[in-house]
């Protein structure tokens, strides 16, 4: 941690935040927001939270920017102001400042940064750091906490992805009356008439297999290095998104259809929860992977934890991949699944 660098980053983060609020062109705001995410990613890295940084880069800066753009593309690019807006802004900024102040008040009460004696470092986290290797044989403590100690949280976080995709998918399937309402409420953006380009297609064709390979690596290698199901899944999803941008959605659908996608969305979470259920049936508690050793006696309880975590990550990756792609296709084609961006 170099404090000058930190302060520079934080200033930039704040500036980005303000700019993205100020800017009237929504597309611009989205881009600035992407920059904001990248900066945050640097901040996380500076703090040593590489896993978080990874996720932030993949999700915050990468995929969510695409989602934003897809949304803007189908709604409106500029904000329309009404006359109350100024006072609303005024009040909301006052509230924000008050909240911020309130949050800052307590900062003096916090333990110093990296304080070895702080409660955080001496309670649960300490246990994880000391025992994770012994109990799970996973060197990356983040993964062992996510996929084993607090696997139940992670299962529901995967569920969040499932729900989000399902909601967006279902909503955009709704009737035409709704679309009319949206069109009247927003200004339509002028349609970008992008010519189909051979170069882009070829380049994407070159990159996608490597991306997917890398994604699989991230999923599998989560036990040892930053990564895991979420990040790998996002990259997998991004590769599909890239393909469908270079060609169109139908091209991808030929391989990976919407119906299949919704199924694989559910299957991903089901893999996770199913492993938990198998543990339960085998006589352990829910998600107690060590019970799996009854099924595969050759693995000890520790080894079965290690392996179960891997499968769990695969489930997460499956859900996240199809989730990302489902959201993108729904948003970019406005629920029609024809062309996309």
């Amino acid at each position: 941690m170099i404090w000058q660098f930190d302060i520079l980053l934080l200033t930039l983060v704040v500036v980005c935040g303000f700019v993205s609020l100020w800017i009237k062109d929504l597309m611009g705001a989205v881009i600035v927001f992407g920059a904001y995410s990248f900066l945050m990613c640097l901040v996380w890295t500076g703090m040593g939270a590489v896993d978080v940084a990874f996720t932030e880069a993949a999700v915050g800066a990468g995929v969510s920017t695409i989602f934003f753009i897809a949304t803007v593309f189908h709604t409106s690019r500029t904000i329309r102001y009404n006359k109350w807006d100024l006072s609303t802004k005024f009040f909301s900024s006052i509230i924000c400042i008050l909240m911020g102040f309130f949050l800052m008040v307590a900062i003096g009460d916090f333990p110093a940064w990296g304080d070895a004696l702080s409660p955080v470092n001496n309670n649960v986290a300490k246990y994880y750091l000391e025992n994770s290797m012994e109990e799970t044989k996973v060197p990356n403590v983040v993964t062992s906490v996510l996929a084993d100690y607090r696997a139940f949280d992670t299962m529901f976080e995967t569920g969040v992805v499932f729900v989000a995709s399902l909601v967006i998918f279902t909503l955009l399937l709704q009737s035409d009356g709704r679309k009319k309402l949206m069109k009247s409420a927003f200004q339509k953006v002028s349609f970008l008439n992008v010519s189909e380009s051979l170069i882009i297609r070829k380049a994407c064709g070159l990159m996608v297999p490597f991306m997917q390979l890398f994604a699989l690596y991230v999923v599998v290698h989560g036990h040892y290095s930053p990564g895991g199901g979420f990040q790998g899944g996002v990259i997998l999803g991004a590769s599909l998104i890239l393909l469908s941008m270079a060609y169109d959605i139908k091209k991808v659908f030929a391989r990976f259809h919407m119906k299949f996608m919704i199924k694989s969305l559910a299957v991903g979470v089901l893999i996770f929860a199913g492993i938990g259920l198998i543990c339960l049936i085998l006589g352990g508690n829910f998600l107690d992977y060590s019970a799996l050793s009854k099924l595969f006696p050759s693995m000890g309880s520790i080894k079965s934890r290690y392996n179960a975590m891997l499968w769990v990550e695969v489930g997460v990756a499956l859900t996240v991949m199809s989730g990302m792609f489902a959201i993108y296709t729904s948003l970019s084609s406005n629920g029609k699944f024809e062309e996309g961006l």
Partner: protein
Amino acid sequence: MADQFLVLIVLFPLFVGLLIPIIAYFNKSVVWPLAILSLIGSFWAVFNTATQLLKLDPSSSISYYLGNWMAPFGIEYVVDRFNIMVLFAIICVSLLTTIFAKQVIEKELGDNAANFYSLFLLFITGLLGITITGDAFNLYVLLEIASLTSYGLIALGRGRALVATFNYLIMGSMGACFYLLGVGYLFIKTGTLNMDQLYDVLPLLFDSKAVLVGFVFIILGMWVKMAFFPLHSWLPNAYSLAPTAAACLMAPLMTKVSVYVMIRFMLNVFSTEYVYSVLTINNIIVIMSSIAIIAGSIYALSQKNLKKMLTFIIVAEIGYMVGGVWTGHVDGIRGAIYHITADAFMTLCLFMAVGCIVYRVGNDKLESLKGIFKKMPITMICFLVGGFSVIGIPPTCGFFSKWYLISGAFNSGAWYFIIALIISSLINAVLFFRIIEIGFFGAMSNEKPDYKSLQSIKFNEVPINMWLPLVIVSMILIILGIYTNEIMTNFILNIVPMM
């Protein structure tokens, strides 16, 4: 299996909720029975947990360690006499709503019905999880599940539901964010997320500012989620525009579960000593909730739309509970806890009845209720029972919760809260009797009674799977009222520490 009931409560709706999108591709007609089966399974698990719990000492609880990691390291499920009650309420409400909702969902959603059921069950999963969990962060994750599904469920409604959902989404995310910030502050100071451990550690940190900020943010977050008066603006539109089935499920549960979380944190994480003695903000909050009650009631009075009126009643009822807890007297807290269950059923009863009316009549404007008594007598009688409960007429349960609330307010000297409660009861009486009047008198174009128009109204009740749950709920309202004493002595008395 015997000791797995705690997790089975959550797993049944979770698995079926996840399976439904897959199954729906093969056979859409099994979705509804499957959903009901899963909820029955969950009910069975709750029931078994309850029987186990009731055999134990009143103050003890049953714990379940997910992944078999001991409490502060893994996630813990805890059932004690407080949340078993809330669990019962949730599972009963959701079971009845699901039975009720078949036709409504088919009518309102058509092709999307399967996905709707999936969201529906996951929402229930979220609420059950929030209630049963003993881990502050797990609570947040499940809160997110419940919130996200509820956004989806509401957005599937008609008309301007999307705009309403957007408002809800902004407010709801803010609420969840506040909660997360609060939990984060607590984590920084204590290094743990387990509620029991927090309860043990926090007394040493009562003078810490960070803990104060954490507390305030958790409570604020929950206030947003429960639509406590100045933060209520998302609720009326969201609930009145949502699909009927979603409104029936959400209106009784979402806000009540948030109240449960608030009370849980106040009693079992921060301890009553901190909340009532270290902090001295009781009076302010009781005044705020008095304002909330009166404002909610007055808003309700000004509505011409049945569902909207009910949503404002919810806002007022939230004021009851918040105020009751913050009176700081045992009676008030007991009343608030009792009211969580009671209000869940009351709201369910009212929303279901309105759902039936909308199903038959086609809209929910007050004028369209003319002569409804003759047309749908069963629905209307149940609606009345619900209304009486909201007003607080014995022997419905609303009366007894009101009793405790007023008693608590009297003992803590919060006369303004008593006045607010009474005024709101009176306004509720006006509200419901206005409906009775409209429904009873029918069309009245001129001075003379138009008996012919009354005679011409045909008996046109909703299908049995719609009115039967409604009748059951209205009976539950009365039964809850009659067995208040049992509930109090067996459950609530043990939860609230003597002060």
